[in-house]
């Protein structure tokens, strides 16, 4: 394949070689079903439990509080629906935010049809929720607060510790969608008072199709997928053993030298932002200026549309993403960009470049250089830019 500058690590990441190497035997050598009692089965069982322990210890949880799922979305669905159905005698009110991933939002909307009441908290211009609004929203009927750890589009990190504290003080469960945070930020579920936490391996150099939900011991939650006795009777289905093994290895690698890796990512991120701001006008940075994911850059280029930007970048071998309507398959641009107050026409021109462990400084320079030309070319074609020039 031709040269590829992959800057869409928030969408998914390649599986690291060390991770794949650990997975391989579980496809066709140690292929036993973990539920089987013969040796081949117990090898798989051990591998599954080892991974579970690794993941648990990474977030300061017990291994038995980790339950494997098919990914982040299943974990999100499970947390929301599972708590809702299991606690509906207690109350029917759930608090979340306007900038959650669709795995949370669409699930909340589904519950609304079933008679649950959902409060969608606003966010400020940086995408941060208002803790006072959160406090005021809690009622006697509130059973769950679900606020994402870090936003997938704009990278903003929420005040999780404060949210956890409010949840605890009010005796309400706290779930956080940490799909973008796990593997990139240190998380201690006890210190942060997190009761449930969603993760997906493919966002930290593990395989697609595997994720997990941390469920603090004692949390009352129904199963989403019922059947066999796997996952201590809480999530049925033959375990995806290679996936689970890969997730365990990936999380281990992710937290090795995390500070160093993040220092590098932040350096590249700031260089990329500076490169763009120094060379291109009518741009704006989305998300919190400092309190954001180390690898996340999200910038709006006024007067041009995101998809044509992405296609142009792709021709130069650069992979990024956009919150434009055209790339989401809907008519509206990203709900996240609208929630932080961007007008539609500006939101359409957003570009997310998410950096990862394999990106280099050369790549950042290359991207800035190519962006300058592409933005100029698309603006030259844009009737909106023309108007601005006239005004000037």
């Amino acid at each position, binding site marked *: 394949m031709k040269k590829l500058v992959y800057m869409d690590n928030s969408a998914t990441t390649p599986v690291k070689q060390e991770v794949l190497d650990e997975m391989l035997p579980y496809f066709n050598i140690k292929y036993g079903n973990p539920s089987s009692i013969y040796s081949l089965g117990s090898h798989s069982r051990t591998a599954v439990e080892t991974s579970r322990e690794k993941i648990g210890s990474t977030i300061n949880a017990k291994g038995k509080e980790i339950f494997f799922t098919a990914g982040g979305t299943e974990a999100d669905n499970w947390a929301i629906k599972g708590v809702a159905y299991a606690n509906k005698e207690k109350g029917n009110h759930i608090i979340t935010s306007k900038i959650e991933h669709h795995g949370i939002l669409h699930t909340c909307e589904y519950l609304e049809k079933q008679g649950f009441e959902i409060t969608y908290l606003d966010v400020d211009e940086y995408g941060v929720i208002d803790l006072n609004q959160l406090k005021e929203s809690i009622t006697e009927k509130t059973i769950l607060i679900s606020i994402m750890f870090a936003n997938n589009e704009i990278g903003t990190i929420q005040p999780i510790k404060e949210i956890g504290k409010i949840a605890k003080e009010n005796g309400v469960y706290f779930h956080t969608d940490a799909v973008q945070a796990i593997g990139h930020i240190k998380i201690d579920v006890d210190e942060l008072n997190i009761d449930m936490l969603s993760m997906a391996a493919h966002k930290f150099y593990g395989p697609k199709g595997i994720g997990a939900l941390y469920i603090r011991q004692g949390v009352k939650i129904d199963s989403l997928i019922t059947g066999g006795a796997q996952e201590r009777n809480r999530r049925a289905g033959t375990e995806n053993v290679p996936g689970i093994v890969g997730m365990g290895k990936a999380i281990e690698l992710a937290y090795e030298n995390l500070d160093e890796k993040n220092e590098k990512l932040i350096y590249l991120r700031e260089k990329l932002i500076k490169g763009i701001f120094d060379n291109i006008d009518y741009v704006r940075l989305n998300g919190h200026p400092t309190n954001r994911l180390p690898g996340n850059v999200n910038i709006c280029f006024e*007067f*041009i*549309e*995101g*998809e*044509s930007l992405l*296609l142009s970048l792709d*021709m130069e071998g650069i992979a990024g993403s956009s919150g*434009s*309507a*055209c790339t989401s*398959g809907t*008519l509206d*641009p990203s709900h996240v960009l609208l929630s932080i107050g961007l*007008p*539609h*026409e500006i939101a*359409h021109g957003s570009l997310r470049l998410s950096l990862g462990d394999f990106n280099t400084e050369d790549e950042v320079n290359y991207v800035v250089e190519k962006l300058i030309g592409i933005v100029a070319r698309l603006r*030259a*074609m*844009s*009737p*909106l*830019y*023309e108007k601005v020039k006239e005004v000037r």
Partner: protein
Amino acid sequence: MYSEKVMDHFQNPRNVGEIKNADGIGEVGNPRCGDIMKMYLKIENETIVDVKFKTFGCGSAIASSSMATEMIKGKTIEEAMNITNKSVAGALDGLPPIKMHCSVLAEQAIKSALLDYSKKNNVPIEGLEDFDPTEDPHDHH
């Protein structure tokens, strides 16, 4: 996702730009929806002797504008009026279903520019009687 034709017209769009003192100018779309097409026509003897466009929009919007300009350049007004969103999409070897509105926009841009010409010059154009340039192209999905 896109055909090679679409990618070619996106990458090397034909007839980009403006025409000073154009005989007809049409602008359709809405920045809220992420697409605006502006089309400039130079018309002599009922014939479109030059055409330029500017587009704010996705890849297929740019490609559709480009293709549409190619299809009407040198054509009579009557011929241009026969261009439909389907013929634009067809000439591009098809568009993904969720992108069909881009070709609708191209058809509307042509008609809009012709309407402008027709009004300015007081020449009625058959087929434009009921034309509404503000109709939502997304309904044509």
